[in-house]
């Protein structure tokens, strides 16, 4: 397992009108091995840029990102990404989508079948292996995308608002399933979201960003409270009623609220 290290990371570019725009400024952050860190921030705070830099899909203009001590320069299978729009291959069945990364690694067929079967079971999706993505609901598509990323056993999981395109009920189910999966197979995870409750429910630590320019505002520890209160054994709605949860949620919410403008 590897950690993620952002060292004084910044991203600036010149706009068409010729002025410099700073998307991210001097972000230093470490996601420890097997730690689940959620990043929240208003739109324009650069949270997705942060994730894309760790993935190697975007590059900082100052500072550097290292994963497991190695500087990130390009995308690689040690850092699997779950995208907001699922990004499943429409021409591949559920089985082929989940096995894609394993085939890239040259895993034998038996191993592929075993892994696919395991994740279909974990995701409650048995019997769907021969369907195409367009035959699945949004929630099921995102389950497949998560399974595809878990299947290659990446050192680092990067999730870019993975539940953002789902309806409220499906999202709740998926949050519970992700908690189940991630506590069972903890991986170094960077989880981008704009939903405060989701961040507090899922993460060990919540990173709050500010914008103009995008920068670190505060890091809120959740793990100690969660473990003391035993959230993981409870249903999501029960957790959300706990004073310990609402306290943390309100704290994060206040950090965000004073930077939200009416036009958001």
């Amino acid at each position, binding site marked *: 397992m590897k950690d993620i290290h952002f060292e004084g990371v910044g991203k600036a570019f010149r706009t068409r009108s010729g002025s410099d725009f700073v998307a991210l400024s001097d972000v230093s952050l470490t996601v420890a091995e097997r730690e689940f860190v959620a990043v929240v921030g208003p739109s324009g705070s650069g949270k997705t840029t942060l994730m894309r830099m760790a*993935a*190697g*899909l975007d590059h900082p203009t100052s500072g550097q990102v290292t994963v497991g001590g190695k500087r990130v320069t*390009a*995308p*690689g*299978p040690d*850092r*699997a*990404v779950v*995208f907001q*729009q699922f*990004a*499943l*291959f*429409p*021409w*591949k069945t559920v089985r082929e989508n989940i096995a*894609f*990364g394993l*085939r*890239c*690694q040259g895993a034998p067929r038996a191993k592929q079948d075993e892994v696919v079967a395991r994740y279909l079971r974990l995701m409650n999706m048995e019997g769907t292996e021969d369907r*195409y*993505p*367009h*035959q699945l609901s949004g929630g099921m598509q995102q389950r497949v995308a998560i399974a*595809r*990323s878990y299947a*290659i056993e990446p050192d680092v999981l*990067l999730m870019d608002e993975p539940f953002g395109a789902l309806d409220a009920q499906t999202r709740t189910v998926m949050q519970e399933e992700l908690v189940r999966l991630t506590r069972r197979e903890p991986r170094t995870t960077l989880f981008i979201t704009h939903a405060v409750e989701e961040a507090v429910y899922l993460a060990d630590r919540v990173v709050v960003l500010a914008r103009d320019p995008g920068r670190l505002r505060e890091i809120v520890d959740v793990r100690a409270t969660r473990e003391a209160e035993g959230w993981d054994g409870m249903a999501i709605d029960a957790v959300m009623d706990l004073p310990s949860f609402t306290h943390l949620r309100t704290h994060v919410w206040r950090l965000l609220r004073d930077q939200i403008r009416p036009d958001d």
Partner: protein
Amino acid sequence: MSAPDMPAQGRAAGLAPAAPRAIRRLPALGIGRRGVVGALSIVGLLALWWVLTTGTGFVAPYRFPSPAEFRGALDQFVTDGYAGGTLWVQAWHSTRLVLMGFVVAALTGVPLGLLMGVSPRAEALLNPAFLLVRPIPPLAWIPLAIVWLGLGDAAKVLVIWFAAFVPSVINTWTGVRGVDRTLIAAAQVHGAGRWRMLTEVIIPGALPMIFTGLRLSLQASWTTLVAAELVGAFFGLGRVLDAAYRDINPAMIAVAMVVVGILGAATTKLLGEAERRLIPWRS
């Protein structure tokens, strides 16, 4: 695939929930309302033809043949032949050339489009040359092809190739550039190498556009072949048209036109069937 291309049975048996409600079906026959309306329109056209040429004599026979004359010309073409061969000989001659030219164009055009789509260097190198040659109408190549290769088959294949090549290249190229960037990123972050990226992401993603290009190429193939045979040929449906024009035989002209139309539609249909089989993930 657009609704009219889809066979009526397929639509009735298909699972596609997106089929428009407005198209009600006659379940017993398996024919959609659209099919009934289509049949009516054809019957109406045939009736109008008979009325204008035979019933009222409004259109003189030397301008356009009556159904009876059409039938006579068809019989003559099938049994005795015309302009050097029977219907089957002439139709096969043309079809064979179209298929040869089309296949050569597809086998060169699609790979070139893929190359230009994935490699900025190839695009920078080839695009200027392409832009220069592209505005020349395909038919304008016919004289040069005849000078080079004479009136035989080779010249026809060459001209078809020139005509059919361009739509294959352009649409493949457009298709590659239109592949969802997120899917390419998803393939990268799951460890896909260049070859797998090409064969499992870029080509399938571009396939609908590739088929659009192939369809246009096939149509261009027929257009060009008939034109090339009109200009000069020993056999083929264009040669039949040319001979019938010299003989002032409107009935035979009409027969040859209808045969070209049917062959064009049939080959397009075959291509559509190939598309349907190769793109099963499309709802």
